[in-house]
Protein backbone atom coordinates (compact mmCIF):
# COMPACT_ATOMS: atom_id res chain seq x y z
CA UNK A 1 0.00 0.00 0.00
CA UNK A 2 1.38 3.36 -1.07
CA UNK A 3 0.22 6.86 -0.12
CA UNK A 4 0.24 9.24 -3.08
CA UNK A 5 0.18 12.97 -2.27
CA UNK A 6 -1.25 15.38 -4.82
CA UNK A 7 -0.67 19.09 -5.45
CA UNK A 8 -2.11 21.84 -7.59
CA UNK A 9 -4.26 20.80 -10.53
CA UNK A 10 -3.90 17.12 -9.50
CA UNK A 11 -5.91 17.80 -6.34
CA UNK A 12 -8.62 19.32 -8.49
CA UNK A 13 -8.59 16.38 -10.91
CA UNK A 14 -8.71 13.73 -8.18
CA UNK A 15 -10.96 15.67 -5.82
CA UNK A 16 -8.61 14.88 -2.96
CA UNK A 17 -5.16 15.69 -1.54
CA UNK A 18 -4.06 12.10 -1.37
CA UNK A 19 -4.83 8.62 -2.62
CA UNK A 20 -3.97 5.08 -1.50
CA UNK A 21 -2.66 2.66 -4.06
CA UNK A 22 -2.60 -1.07 -3.29
CA UNK A 23 -1.50 -4.03 -5.45
CA UNK A 24 1.73 -2.27 -6.33
CA UNK A 25 3.92 -3.23 -9.29
CA UNK A 26 7.05 -5.22 -8.53
CA UNK A 27 9.59 -3.67 -8.48
CA UNK A 28 7.79 -0.42 -7.55
CA UNK A 29 9.56 2.01 -9.87
CA UNK A 30 8.16 5.52 -10.20
CA UNK A 31 7.21 4.87 -13.84
CA UNK A 32 5.35 1.64 -12.99
CA UNK A 33 3.51 3.30 -10.09
CA UNK A 34 2.42 6.17 -12.34
CA UNK A 35 1.13 3.64 -14.92
CA UNK A 36 -0.92 1.91 -12.26
CA UNK A 37 -2.22 5.25 -10.96
CA UNK A 38 -3.37 6.18 -14.49
CA UNK A 39 -5.34 2.92 -14.75
CA UNK A 40 -6.98 3.24 -11.33
CA UNK A 41 -7.66 7.01 -11.55
CA UNK A 42 -8.38 7.93 -15.20
CA UNK A 43 -9.04 11.56 -14.23
CA UNK A 44 -5.35 11.89 -13.33
CA UNK A 45 -4.04 10.19 -16.47
CA UNK A 46 -3.79 13.26 -18.75
CA UNK A 47 -1.67 15.05 -16.15
CA UNK A 48 0.81 12.31 -15.30
CA UNK A 49 3.02 12.76 -18.35
CA UNK A 50 4.12 16.17 -17.04
CA UNK A 51 4.53 15.41 -13.30
CA UNK A 52 7.77 15.26 -11.37
CA UNK A 53 7.87 13.01 -8.31
CA UNK A 54 9.43 13.42 -4.88
CA UNK A 55 9.84 11.63 -1.58
CA UNK A 56 10.58 13.82 1.41
CA UNK A 57 12.61 16.81 0.24
CA UNK A 58 14.16 15.08 -2.78
CA UNK A 59 13.10 14.38 -6.35
CA UNK A 60 12.97 10.76 -7.50
CA UNK A 61 13.66 9.69 -11.09
CA UNK A 62 11.16 7.75 -13.19
CA UNK A 63 13.40 4.65 -13.28
CA UNK A 64 14.02 4.72 -9.53
CA UNK A 65 12.56 2.04 -7.21
CA UNK A 66 10.88 3.74 -4.28
CA UNK A 67 10.44 2.94 -0.61
CA UNK A 68 6.68 2.26 -0.54
CA UNK A 69 6.45 2.94 3.19
CA UNK A 70 6.91 6.66 2.46
CA UNK A 71 4.45 8.85 0.52
CA UNK A 72 5.11 9.43 -3.17
CA UNK A 73 4.53 13.12 -3.92
CA UNK A 74 3.26 14.14 -7.37
CA UNK A 75 4.30 17.62 -8.50
CA UNK A 76 2.49 19.00 -11.56
CA UNK A 77 3.96 21.85 -13.66
CA UNK A 78 4.89 24.68 -11.33
CA UNK A 79 3.77 28.32 -11.40
CA UNK A 80 5.57 30.06 -8.53
CA UNK A 81 7.24 33.44 -8.50
Amino acid at each position, binding site marked *: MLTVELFGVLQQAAGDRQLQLDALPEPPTVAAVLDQLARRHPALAPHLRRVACAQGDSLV*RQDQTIDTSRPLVLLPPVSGG
Partner: protein
Amino acid sequence: MSRMTEQPLDMGQLLRETENDACGALVVFGGIVRNHHAGKGVSGMSYSAYGPMAEKVLAELEQETLQKFPVSECRIVHRTGDLAIGEASVLVVVRAPHRGDAFDGARYAIDTLKVRLPVWKHDFYEDGSDAYQDGVPLETAASRDAENSQ
Protein backbone atom coordinates in the same frame (compact mmCIF):
# COMPACT_ATOMS: atom_id res chain seq x y z
CA MET B 1 12.49 35.29 7.80
CA SER B 2 11.69 31.75 6.77
CA ARG B 3 12.03 31.36 2.99
CA MET B 4 8.49 29.99 2.61
CA THR B 5 5.95 31.91 4.62
CA GLU B 6 2.25 32.70 4.88
CA GLN B 7 3.08 36.15 6.26
CA PRO B 8 3.30 39.28 4.07
CA LEU B 9 6.85 39.55 2.73
CA ASP B 10 8.92 42.21 4.49
CA MET B 11 11.38 43.88 2.11
CA GLY B 12 12.81 46.09 4.86
CA GLN B 13 13.77 43.05 6.88
CA LEU B 14 15.44 41.39 3.89
CA LEU B 15 17.41 44.56 3.18
CA ARG B 16 18.62 44.67 6.78
CA GLU B 17 19.52 40.96 6.76
CA THR B 18 21.67 41.42 3.64
CA GLU B 19 23.51 44.62 4.59
CA ASN B 20 27.09 44.39 3.34
CA ASP B 21 29.46 47.36 3.33
CA ALA B 22 31.52 45.90 0.47
CA CYS B 23 28.58 45.94 -1.95
CA GLY B 24 27.94 48.98 -4.15
CA ALA B 25 24.95 47.45 -5.91
CA LEU B 26 21.58 46.23 -4.70
CA VAL B 27 18.97 44.63 -6.96
CA VAL B 28 15.55 43.62 -5.68
CA PHE B 29 13.05 41.67 -7.74
CA GLY B 30 9.46 41.47 -6.59
CA GLY B 31 6.71 39.33 -8.08
CA ILE B 32 3.43 41.16 -7.56
CA VAL B 33 -0.14 39.82 -7.87
CA ARG B 34 -1.57 41.34 -11.05
CA ASN B 35 -5.20 42.24 -11.66
CA HIS B 36 -5.34 40.25 -14.90
CA HIS B 37 -4.20 36.96 -16.42
CA ALA B 38 -4.74 35.64 -19.93
CA GLY B 39 -7.26 38.38 -20.67
CA LYS B 40 -9.41 37.81 -17.57
CA GLY B 41 -9.80 40.07 -14.54
CA VAL B 42 -8.23 38.57 -11.41
CA SER B 43 -9.70 39.35 -8.00
CA GLY B 44 -7.19 37.41 -5.92
CA MET B 45 -5.09 34.29 -5.83
CA SER B 46 -3.69 31.60 -3.67
CA TYR B 47 -0.29 29.91 -3.68
CA SER B 48 0.21 26.37 -2.43
CA ALA B 49 3.59 24.71 -2.00
CA TYR B 50 5.15 21.36 -1.34
CA GLY B 51 6.80 22.64 1.79
CA PRO B 52 9.56 20.14 2.59
CA MET B 53 11.09 20.56 -0.86
CA ALA B 54 10.33 24.26 -1.42
CA GLU B 55 12.37 25.51 1.53
CA LYS B 56 15.34 23.38 0.43
CA VAL B 57 15.08 24.50 -3.22
CA LEU B 58 15.26 28.17 -2.21
CA ALA B 59 18.21 27.62 0.15
CA GLU B 60 20.08 25.77 -2.60
CA LEU B 61 19.21 28.41 -5.19
CA GLU B 62 20.62 31.15 -2.94
CA GLN B 63 23.88 29.20 -2.67
CA GLU B 64 23.98 28.43 -6.38
CA THR B 65 23.51 32.12 -7.24
CA LEU B 66 26.36 33.05 -4.88
CA GLN B 67 28.58 30.47 -6.58
CA LYS B 68 27.70 31.23 -10.21
CA PHE B 69 27.95 35.03 -10.00
CA PRO B 70 30.33 37.46 -8.27
CA VAL B 71 27.62 38.47 -5.82
CA SER B 72 27.96 38.62 -2.05
CA GLU B 73 24.39 38.31 -0.78
CA CYS B 74 21.34 36.50 -2.08
CA ARG B 75 18.06 36.03 -0.23
CA ILE B 76 14.84 34.62 -1.67
CA VAL B 77 11.47 34.42 0.06
CA HIS B 78 8.16 33.17 -1.31
CA ARG B 79 4.72 33.60 0.10
CA THR B 80 1.93 31.01 0.30
CA GLY B 81 -1.77 31.25 1.06
CA ASP B 82 -4.23 33.90 -0.09
CA LEU B 83 -2.84 37.07 -1.65
CA ALA B 84 -4.61 40.27 -2.71
CA ILE B 85 -3.89 42.28 -5.85
CA GLY B 86 -0.69 44.32 -5.40
CA GLU B 87 0.83 42.05 -2.75
CA ALA B 88 4.27 40.49 -3.29
CA SER B 89 4.38 36.73 -3.88
CA VAL B 90 8.18 36.54 -4.11
CA LEU B 91 11.15 38.75 -3.25
CA VAL B 92 14.73 38.26 -4.44
CA VAL B 93 17.44 40.46 -2.92
CA VAL B 94 20.95 40.40 -4.36
CA ARG B 95 23.92 42.55 -3.39
CA ALA B 96 27.23 42.68 -5.23
CA PRO B 97 30.27 44.93 -5.52
CA HIS B 98 29.22 45.77 -9.12
CA ARG B 99 25.83 46.41 -10.64
CA GLY B 100 25.98 44.16 -13.70
CA ASP B 101 26.62 41.15 -11.48
CA ALA B 102 23.77 42.08 -9.14
CA PHE B 103 21.34 42.28 -12.09
CA ASP B 104 22.60 39.00 -13.56
CA GLY B 105 22.39 37.19 -10.23
CA ALA B 106 18.86 38.39 -9.42
CA ARG B 107 17.62 37.50 -12.88
CA TYR B 108 19.15 34.05 -12.70
CA ALA B 109 17.59 33.47 -9.29
CA ILE B 110 14.04 34.34 -10.35
CA ASP B 111 14.29 32.62 -13.74
CA THR B 112 15.52 29.44 -12.07
CA LEU B 113 12.98 29.62 -9.25
CA LYS B 114 10.25 29.55 -11.90
CA VAL B 115 11.31 26.07 -13.08
CA ARG B 116 12.43 24.54 -9.78
CA LEU B 117 10.20 25.69 -6.95
CA PRO B 118 7.28 23.33 -6.21
CA VAL B 119 4.64 26.06 -5.91
CA TRP B 120 1.25 26.38 -7.63
CA LYS B 121 -0.75 29.49 -8.37
CA HIS B 122 -4.51 29.30 -8.14
CA ASP B 123 -6.26 32.27 -9.76
CA PHE B 124 -9.68 33.53 -8.72
CA TYR B 125 -11.30 35.53 -11.49
CA GLU B 126 -13.71 38.44 -11.29
CA ASP B 127 -16.31 36.39 -13.18
CA GLY B 128 -16.42 33.92 -10.29
CA SER B 129 -14.42 31.17 -11.98
CA ASP B 130 -11.06 29.91 -10.79
CA ALA B 131 -8.15 27.89 -12.20
CA TYR B 132 -4.69 26.64 -11.46
CA GLN B 133 -2.38 28.44 -13.84
CA ASP B 134 -0.80 26.14 -16.36
CA GLY B 135 2.82 25.99 -15.27
CA VAL B 136 6.13 24.67 -16.50
CA PRO B 137 7.19 21.06 -15.84
CA LEU B 138 9.45 20.99 -12.81
CA GLU B 139 13.11 20.98 -13.79
CA THR B 140 14.59 17.67 -12.71
CA ALA B 141 18.17 16.44 -12.82
CA ALA B 142 17.19 14.36 -15.87
CA SER B 143 15.62 17.33 -17.73
CA ARG B 144 18.63 19.49 -16.86
CA ASP B 145 21.01 16.89 -18.27
CA ALA B 146 18.89 16.57 -21.42
CA GLU B 147 18.94 20.34 -21.88
CA ASN B 148 22.68 20.57 -21.32
CA SER B 149 23.37 17.84 -23.88
CA GLN B 150 21.42 19.62 -26.62
